[in-house]
């Protein structure tokens, strides 16, 4: 006996919750009415990302790694839904494995890119990486793998993120948000805003509380976005949409060097 | 004890390394020890002992702008007979109120073992002149309060005017001496470090405190297990070195019976049995009492309890 399915309403993912756009607008994508995010939604997302930053960067690296691994667990459980809205099971499998790969870096990166520095004097000198802060990400295609490839290195290092999802294929991003919401990710660490690129990209590039900007997935006038970012000396990153490396994590980290005398 | 140089304001500088040393508390280790003690599993008879003790050392408190004689009378009755359905439940140690409400608390607790404690010295901020603070103290003592809970001047402390902080305590103690015991509230949530908590504790004790107390309860950050441990260690050091007995009061943020038991375990394992008495230990609380009553009834009946079955006051 057939029954009428209950269709999902696709909303934004901000602060661990799923609000509609404050503008009340939607646009048509993949046969659904998808929330058309506004500048104010970006503003709200950045605010909650900032608030979430202290707790997320304050967690032990081990705990952060475990949270990322749990994201992979949740994605694995939702393979079918995710596959439906991207290129299929292969893209989902690679995306899950990518998250696992980055999860494993959380408690190791400092050992690879940090250092104890042999300065010429009776000082102990060490360099440690630290998260930059709220990071804006323009998600590249493919809609799941590209997003995950850019998101995982940003958050594993302790940053919080505001992601502008793929404009043409936004549904998988919201499916992913449902994984995030059930993966013990503290609210506000990852925020996903769907909508029109041309409206959202300048909003995030010009926001003074976004400290790093990942333009890997940017299209259109990229130079203009970089110019907007210069106003608060944003770290502008152009990575690769389908590659994994600890240096993708390092791109979103500051380096702090500390001196201390050695003496009785 | 060697004679020590006396600074203006009467502050003595301890010279010998054996004396309680100023500052120097390792925060990580302190918090670990507090966390470890908090894992003690207190069950059955030992739990009932702790819960009843928690009531016997409780200062049942109301410190609101909206307090009225009616509210205080009801709270006092609750403190005398916390559970009307069970006469075996002991009375609390004291009722703690603002100065204006002292007479009403006294009237209701007359003839019982329950004391009346009054806050004074421009509680909670302490930001008034010494004259005003002394006048307020004199008023509550004259009104008959058994105990005075004063606040230290945190502004003076944090700007390094330790002599001024010390002086105030000495002067307030003068007003109380012989008539009321003095608790000195450090407001640990504003002091910033455990080193400062240790210094403030020593300062308060040097000034004559009968009890040192964590908080006013008016800040989000009040009593915590590590802060109490820090203060208990000062009390222990002073007692070891001089024989002087100083009491401890943990106040603010203690809402659940489980927490109260953790605070008592700490006192037990740091200062020993001798401090597990209302003459040397108090818990300042308001909503805690009903949670303790619920836990006691659960121990007796084996069932988890429902707040509707316990009077609000």
């Amino acid at each position, binding site marked *: 006996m057939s029954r009428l399915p209950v269709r999902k309403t696709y909303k934004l993912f901000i602060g661990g919750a799923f609000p509609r756009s404050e503008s009340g607008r939607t646009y048509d994508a993949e046969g659904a009415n998808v929330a058309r995010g506004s500048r104010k939604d970006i503003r709200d997302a950045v605010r909650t990302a900032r608030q979430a930053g202290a707790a997320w960067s304050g967690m032990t690296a081990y705990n952060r790694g475990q949270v990322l691994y749990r994201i992979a667990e949740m994605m694995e459980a939702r393979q079918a839904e995710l596959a439906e809205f991207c290129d299929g099971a292969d893209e989902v499998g690679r995306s899950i494995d990518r998250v696992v790969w980055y999860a494993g870096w959380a408690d190791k990166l400092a050992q690879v890119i940090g250092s104890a520095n042999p300065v010429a004097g009776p000082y102990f000198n060490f360099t440690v990486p630290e998260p930059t802060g709220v990071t804006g990400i323009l998600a590249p295609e493919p809609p799941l793998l590209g997003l995950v490839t850019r998101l995982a290195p940003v958050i594993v290092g302790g940053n919080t993120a505001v992601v502008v999802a793929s404009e043409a294929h936004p549904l998988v991003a919201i499916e992913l948000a449902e994984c995030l919401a059930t993966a013990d990710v503290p609210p506000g660490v990852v925020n996903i805003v769907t909508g029109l690129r041309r409206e959202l990209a300048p909003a995030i590039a010009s926001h003074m509380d976004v400290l790093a900007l990942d333009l890997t997935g940017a299209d259109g006038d990229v130079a203009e976005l970089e110019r907007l970012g210069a106003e608060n000396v944003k770290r502008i990153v152009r990575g690769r949409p389908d590659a994994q490396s600890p240096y993708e994590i390092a791109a979103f980290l500051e380096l702090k060097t500390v001196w201390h005398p050695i003496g009785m | 004890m060697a004679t020590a140089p006396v600074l203006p304001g009467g502050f003595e500088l301890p010279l010998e390394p054996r004396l309680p040393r100023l500052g120097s508390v390792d925060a990580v280790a302190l918090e670990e020890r507090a966390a470890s003690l908090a894992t003690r599993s207190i*069950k059955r008879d030992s739990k009932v002992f702790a819960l009843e003790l928690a009531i016997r050392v409780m200062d049942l408190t109301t410190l609101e702008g909206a307090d009225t004689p009616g509210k205080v009378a009801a709270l006092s009755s609750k403190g005398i007979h916390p559970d009307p359905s069970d006469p075996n439940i002991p009375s609390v140690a004291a009722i703690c109120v603002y100065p204006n409400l002292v007479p009403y608390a006294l009237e209701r607790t007359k003839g019982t073992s329950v004391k009346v404690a009054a806050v004074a010295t421009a509680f909670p901020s302490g930001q008034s002149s010494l004259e005003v603070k002394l006048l307020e103290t004199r008023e509550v003592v004259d009104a008959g309060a058994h105990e005075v809970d004063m606040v230290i001047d945190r502004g003076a402390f944090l700007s390094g005017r330790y002599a001024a902080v010390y002086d105030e305590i000495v002067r307030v103690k003068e007003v109380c001496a012989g008539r009321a015991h003095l608790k000195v509230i450090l407001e640990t949530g504003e002091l910033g470090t455990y080193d400062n908590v240790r210094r403030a504790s020593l300062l308060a004790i040097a000034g004559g405190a009968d009890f040192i107390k964590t908080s006013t309860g008016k800040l989000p950050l009040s009593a915590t297990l590590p802060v109490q441990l820090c203060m208990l260690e000062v009390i222990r050091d002073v007692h070891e070195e001089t024989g002087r007995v100083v009491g401890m009061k943990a106040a603010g943020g203690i809402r659940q019976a489980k927490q109260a038991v953790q605070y008592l375990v700490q006192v037990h394992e740091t200062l020993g049995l001798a401090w597990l008495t209302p003459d040397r230990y108090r818990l300042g609380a308001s909503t805690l009492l009903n949670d303790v009553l619920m836990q006691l009834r659960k121990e007796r009946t084996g069932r988890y309890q429902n707040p509707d079955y316990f009077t609000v006051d």
Partner: protein
Amino acid sequence: MTKDKREVAHRPETAAIPTGWEYSPAPESREVVHLEERYGLYIGGQFVEPLSNERYTTIDPAREESLAEVAQAGKADVDRAVKAAREAYAERWSAIRPSERAKYLFRIARILQERSREFAVLESMNGGKPIRESRDVDLPLAAAHFFYYAGWADKLEYAFPNRRPRPLGVAGQIIPWNFPLLMLAWKIAPALAAGNTVVLKPAETTPLSALLFCDVVRQAELPPGVVNIVTGDGRTGAELVSHPDVNKIAFTGSTEVGKAIQRTLAGTGKRLSLELGGKAANIIFDDAPLDQAVEGIVNGIYFNQGHVCCAGSRLLVEESIYETVVSKLKRRMRTLRVGDPLDKNTDVGAINSKQQLDKIGSLVQAGIDEGAEIYQPPCKLPERGYWFVPTVFTNVAQSYRIAQEEIFGPVLSVLTFRTPDEAIEKANNTPYGLSAGVWTEKGSRILAMAQRLKAGVVWANTYNRFDPASPFGGYKESGFGREGGRHGLESYVALDDA
């Protein structure tokens, strides 16, 4: 009746001081553990009967009750295990993608987290350590170790600049009885992450958590033969060490046995890592936060009944604060609760075996005979089981046996020093070099002491802290090689040219 309220402040204490607050027993239930009556050897992904036909009984040292029968693996059994490990290495483990290897290890970590209560109770039953420690320290660290090394499995090219690390092949691993499951994790996790397969021999007295671990291996669906467990005493270990087809031996245990292994392997070209004994100095300066330092002393020597290679078994205290520290220490010792390991309030559990108990007793007697002053807090010990009261010796000279030899029990020796140089000299004056502790508020002094102490692990203002990311291992006769951290991978890889 009225009371004169003005008398209140001078009233003698009338509120009754309780005569006692005994903590009611708070036992952790044993029901969560399901024990077989007898166990075989775990080889090639299944339990098999020992070809040696020899078995022995393993006990609960707190009750002197037997828990199960386990196998005494002989030469043929060890050979069978190594063959299984070799086959698994050649046919399965070295070929699979590193990212898949990682996911097996992540599974193991997760399963250990899920079953941590079961394992914690078993560890306390078979080893004697307090449940609070196995629950709060051993299990979380063991799971974390697998989690940490899981993440390295597919990142080895980043661990060694300009090198392509390759696995060694089959690793033979021999572990001690003081942290049975944790030592298993320290050995197996990095070995597997690097692509090796293993044959592991748990300690004679504590085989059960390793045997239960085989069930985790089964649940994780690890390919058969990647992990093999052979139980037995020192004879089994000797067979494993001398087996010609083992590429690498990892040993944690006594210095005496470590030297024997090193002699056996001489000339064979086999890789070796050793984690041996220690006699660590815990150094307290006059500006140290005293109450926290005392906690550090207590944690350093009474944690796990002192069955810790890196235990702070020598307290070096600056002479000017000697009286205060010793008085605080003795007072603190009186609050230590010795008893049933499965009681959640127990601080100090049972000694692991009669043999170890006798050894501790004999060294303590030596201390008394040599003229040191002994203090033991009053303690009511259970009738059955192996127990030793926490002990501290004062008036100890550097030359006394109790200041030189590793006791491996809850026995502390206290010595004094006057200057930092003297502290360094005394701390380093030992053939061991595993760990040291420094307590001072002065940052530069921490770093200066750390620089000059000949110890593989220096703890400043803390003690007995472990983390899978932190390399652990000794100088001198405390062994060589490191476990934990990026450096912990070195023992399990061959660093070919770039």
